[in-house]
């Protein structure tokens, strides 16, 4: 989890949760199944590029709208490891941490990225690189980093429960 890299798909400002995963598909929580409908309103070409892009780059207010957790899990199902954006909506940011998707706030990196740019995120040191240009960001505080590192809140709580049971 400390470092992820790959080519990126660039989206704009205010990418909302109805665009990321339309409500009609919320009857599923299967990441793979959801991935088939991720970004569906943007058309099949964008969807195909999503599948080739471990990193999604957004503008400001990425993930605004609903509290639906599937907005992050559909991206994880499509193979996305990190979203780099100018800013995030609160609930999307929270859901990212709780489902193990890296969410990086960096207006500079988001502004520098072009479709297909090579983006590298080092979450521990707080550095994101776009086509070789490095930008710093504020890493997760330790309380939240351990949730992301566990792969999300549920695996994190499961590990805690196992610890308590064996103590």
């Amino acid at each position, binding site marked *: 989890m400390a470092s992820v890299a790959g080519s990126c798909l660039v989206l704009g400002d205010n990418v*909302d949760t109805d665009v990321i995963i*339309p409500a009609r598909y919320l009857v599923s929580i299967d990441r793979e199944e959801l991935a088939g409908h991720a970004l569906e*309103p943007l058309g099949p070409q964008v969807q195909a590029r999503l599948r080739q892009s471990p990193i999604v780059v957004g503008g400001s207010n990425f993930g605004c709208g609903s*509290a*639906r*957790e599937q907005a992050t899990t559909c991206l994880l199902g499509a193979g996305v490891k990190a979203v780099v954006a100018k800013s995030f909506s*609160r*609930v999307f940011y929270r859901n990212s941490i709780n489902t193990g998707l890296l969410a990086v706030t960096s207006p500079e990196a988001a502004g520098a990225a072009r479709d297909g740019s090579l983006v590298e995120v080092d979450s521990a040191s707080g550095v994101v690189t776009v086509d070789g240009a490095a930008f710093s960001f504020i890493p997760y505080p330790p*309380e939240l980093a351990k949730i992301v590192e566990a792969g999300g809140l*549920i695996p994190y709580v499961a590990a805690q429960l196992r610890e308590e049971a064996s103590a």
Partner: protein
Amino acid sequence: MSQTFAQKALARASGVSGIKPGQIVDAFPDVYMSHTASWRCIKTLESLGTEQLYDRDRIAMVMDHISPANTAKTAADQRLCREFAQRMEIKNFFDVDSGIAHVVLMEGGLIKPGQLIIGTDSHSTIYGALGAFGTGVGYSEITAAWVTGKLWMRVPESLRLKIDGSFLPGTYAKDLMLYLIGKLGADGATYQSVEFHGDLVRSLSISERMTLTNLAMEMGCKNAFVPPDNKTRDYLAAAGLGEGDYEELQPDADAVYERTVELDLSTLSPQIAVPHTVENVVPISEVTGTKVDQVFIGSCANAKLDDLLIAADILKGHKVAPGVRLIVTPASRMIMAQAGHEGALTTLLEAGAMVTNPGCGACAGNGGAMADGEVTLSTANRNFRGRMGSYNASIYLSSPATAAASAVAGVITDPRELAR
């Protein structure tokens, strides 16, 4: 001292005093609300391999987004919730006949001032209308809270809104909020706790305050808050709660805010959010005459009793324009019954409205889908692309008064024009 509402509420819920914005605390919510997403929480609980719940009485489940079930899959999901609630002795289970979770819980006396409420719905900010700290989370967090009783919370910075003046005829709390969202932007209050102060806010009913705290979410806030007063106490009394049943929290007079915005809205005209973002707001004069195929009066933003009465008052003696579909979905069963007693349902039906069972209805994409190129004028809180059927359809947002007037005219119409 010098504490905002958010600092006080999260200090109460975490047991940590003197907390500051930016600090992360473990908070223990008073209510964990889950709506149609409840089955996802139950499935997630199965994956955790435990049925040891922290406090079952803090769980509230409301089957609102898809009511009644529309497929065998959703019926099975709802049966799972029903059976789980029975087996785990969860007393606060509200089935598909109840209405929208937020409204059902507030009118049922389950939301108290000062409490921390988490819900699987972004519009959980609405609970601030009663002076509670409400915030939306994902279903995994609700599941985790069922077991551990807590969740991590970053103490938010606060935005103080001071809103004075009074509404002109034809202008309502919805117009105020659309104007505000247009002015501050869809991320104008991201991560922040929004406090509503001022004479105009104080003059509003609890139902109108719900419209404020509900739509504050569309500026990206973490929670929203209206200071409790006698109106709050009266509402709570009607919901079966005496003043000894709760403890109000008020921000200190010298609390520190990240930003203060002062507005006088005495000259505000009806406002419209145009496709496809809620911050895309214009005065109604800029879109008057836009043809509508469908009008939806519903959602947790604007389908409460006062909203239905206002719409009925405008529709009385009129007919919905030929070719226009008017869908009215009361927010709760209680509100629907009250609207029936007041004669509003009959008026709406006689004018040509379709009145549906209470719930989220078309706002959550359950009925009321549009074909390519169609236009809906809606009293809900979102106009995102694809939210109501086709990705090539358009949603405009307005107050119930504007929606009712536009249903009669068949085009977006200033309610003051129709009244004349």
